[in-house]
């Protein structure tokens, strides 16, 4: 078992979570909790796989996934922003809807054959760096590299640009933003859409790069929900989200690969000799999510920081007392 290879695969697997988590950060920063990520990711994975199959061009697949998941996200936007329904229930319903849709429209895709994947390559120079080079810059999918660029950009965007400032204002105190002429509804729709687009990319990252193919609900296996948990751990900060995503990705890979070798740290590998112990390994990412949430909540309590103040609350203008 080669740790470098596991970490390398872990980075790729973490990229899925990275996109999903960052997308959710955008939505939540604007004040809209979107629990529909799992469903949107499935729609993205199914769409990208099916479109790539038809067109032969994975880039068109990615674009289609972004669009499809973005559209699904607008169902949530409409229900929770315009119709002011409870965001929890609305998000859940969108998750069910996305899951169901992807199952119906993805029927038969699992046996559809092979597709052309997104290109993978090594970055010249950077891949020569010891340890970091092979882990981060060798034979990674282009989406992984895009991930490296995306998360610092998103961080910068949120904290150091005018639209980012408006995004934060809308999630913290929409009435204040509204009073200064910022269109709260439009921005919330926009960032829920952005969240959907990211979830679509996350789905496409699975089906076109990390574990190619369409395996119905097992394609995402709850990663959308893990992403919702990671957002809390990340405290709505893309940099922390990236850290969490890559650690999680590595953990997922480690669990898959740990069952391979006969010897582990000098002793007989129990997971090799009794593969059923693998079921306990499978629990780890989910248990770890819970632990991460506990740690995150404790830290948030200690530092008294928290979610965007208006998260989960519909904004209604023109009512008395605002």
């Amino acid at each position: 078992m080669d740790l470098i290879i596991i970490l390398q695969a872990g980075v790729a697997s973490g990229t899925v979570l990275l996109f999903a988590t960052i997308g959710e950060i955008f939505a939540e920063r604007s004040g809209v909790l979107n629990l529909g990520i799992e469903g949107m990711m499935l729609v993205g994975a199914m769409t990208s796989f099916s479109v790539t199959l038809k067109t032969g061009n994975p880039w068109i697949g990615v674009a289609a996934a972004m669009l499809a998941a973005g559209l699904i996200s607008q169902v949530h936007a409409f229900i929770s922003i315009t119709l002011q329904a409870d965001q929890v229930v609305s998000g859940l319903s969108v998750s069910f809807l996305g899951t169901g849709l992807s199952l119906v429209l993805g029927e038969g895709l699992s046996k559809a054959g092979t597709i052309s994947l997104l290109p993978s390559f090594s970055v010249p120079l950077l891949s020569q760096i010891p340890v970091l080079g092979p882990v981060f810059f060798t034979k990674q999918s282009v989406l992984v590299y895009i991930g490296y660029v995306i998360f610092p950009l998103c961080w910068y965007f949120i904290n150091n640009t005018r639209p980012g400032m408006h995004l934060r204002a809308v999630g913290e105190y929409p009435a204040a933003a509204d009073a200064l002429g910022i269109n709260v509804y439009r921005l919330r729709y926009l960032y829920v859409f952005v969240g959907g687009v990211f979830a679509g990319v996350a789905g496409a990252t699975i089906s076109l790069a990390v574990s190619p193919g369409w395996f119905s609900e097992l394609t995402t296996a709850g990663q959308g929900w893990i992403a919702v948990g990671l957002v809390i751990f990340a405290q709505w900060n893309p940099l922390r989200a990236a850290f969490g995503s890559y650690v999680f990705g590595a953990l997922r890979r480690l669990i898959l690969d740990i069952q391979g070798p006969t010897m582990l740290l000098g002793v007989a590998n129990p997971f090799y000799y009794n593969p059923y112990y693998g079921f306990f390994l499978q629990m780890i990412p989910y248990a770890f999510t819970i632990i991460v949430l506990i740690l995150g909540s404790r830290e948030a309590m200690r530092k008294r920081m928290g979610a965007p103040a208006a998260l989960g609350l519909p904004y209604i203008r023109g009512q008395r007392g605002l």
Partner: protein
Amino acid sequence: MEHVNISTQKPTVVSMRGIVKKFPGVLANDHVDFDLFEGEIHALLGENGAGKSTLMNILAGLYKAEAGLIYLNGNPVNFNSPRDAIKAGIGMVHQHFMLVPSQTVTENILLGLEDPRFRLRLRDYEQKVADLGERFGLHVDPRAKIWQLSVGEQQRVEILKMLYRGAQVLIMDEPTAVLAPTEIEGLFKTLRSMVKEGKSIIFISHKLQEVLEISDRVTVLRRGKVTAAGIPLLNTTREELARLMVGREVLFRLEKKPLQAGEVILSVENIRAENDRGLPALNGLSLNVRRGEVVGLAGVAGNGQRELAEVITGLRKVTSGRIVVQGEDLTNQPVKIGIRRGISHVPEDRTHVGTAPNLSITDNVIMKNYNRPPIGNRWVVNAIAASKYANDLRNSYEIVVPSVATPVRLLSGGNLQRVILAREISSQPSLLVAVQPTRGLDVGAIEGVQRLLLAQREAGSAILLISEELEELLSLSDRIYVIYEGKIMGEVLDGDLEKIGLMMTGTPIEKIEAKGGA
């Protein structure tokens, strides 16, 4: 409607004609006319709920009027959003500040502007903000986060926000409600310096004294209608304005029976507690309340009043000190124990704390006794007893609703407060902690609530009345404590306003008396 003609050379900046605005169940503005001259401070006077804020929210583009026209410098304008109004040079400083707490002063000022286009180079803008503050005497650190600022500082940020946008007309919605007397002085200075630069100011208030002090002209609203249109202050009197405002001569004193206060019911000894942010809110506060007296607690908002009420009723833990009720130590005991021992609490926030909006009136009035006979019976809530109880309270407290099954979210503010008072008073409490019991109510409702409190005093309760309305405190209380930064500055028996004012701004009574003596 009386119309007072005034000859003036000043040009009219804003003119509103025939403004009508309805809210569900209320006609907030009924064909209102309003004129603002250049370089004047124009007071908009009226009781809570008279439609002042609504009218100004229309001018500021936040609400849309159902009918009526607005002219700016003689040209008709149509504001679809606050942005339109701000672009036209009309800015409003709201009663609840429209500031994003997690962002800095400069960020808040730049919100919604086209410049900077994309990258926030805050350094450059911080200097601009500081300069602007200098010019109008509005001192505030441009890099501070809003949540770190005092209420007065936050108000300065709000004003700066509008000045930065080049506002020519500034609407101030009840700006003094949250300020200490010294801060009010500072604000008035700023307003005067702005007028000198040719800006025009609309000053919304329901406090006569301030209106008389700061404004040039006054328009009075009552129940959505204009009762006085832009009278120069020189031509009117305090009594006249009061009459226009409430529609009849105001009783400035309620009838209060002289009562000999009994034994000490509540004794708070040297308590310390933190606020929600973990900062000290109460710093060694002591006070006591005796049977049959109303003890007022005066102070500017945010000096620990809310925390004190929560500490006494068990909603918040103290870090040190003792709370004794009727001789029993209730320090850090759960709310339930307090309720059993006869502590009632009229909370500051009626909708978010005092009631459950979607539950029926019945469910809301049994909140404190659902688990005690006759309503609570072993494990069960006796539905018949509960609804009988609710109907009794509806009749005796004059809660106007078709049925006690109505969810309380459908009640008006006055009715809602009567539901809470009915619940809290009907248990014949030994101690009643009432926080801002009349805020936001109309005149009639206020009087009703005050009478209920006095009746309870006669019935032998000890009442701690926490209020920001000095007039209310003076007319109801037997004694008044003044709170400042979580400490009692002193106690006043004779209602000496000057002393109270000094203590509200942080001068302990010992110092005042030392000076007075010297």
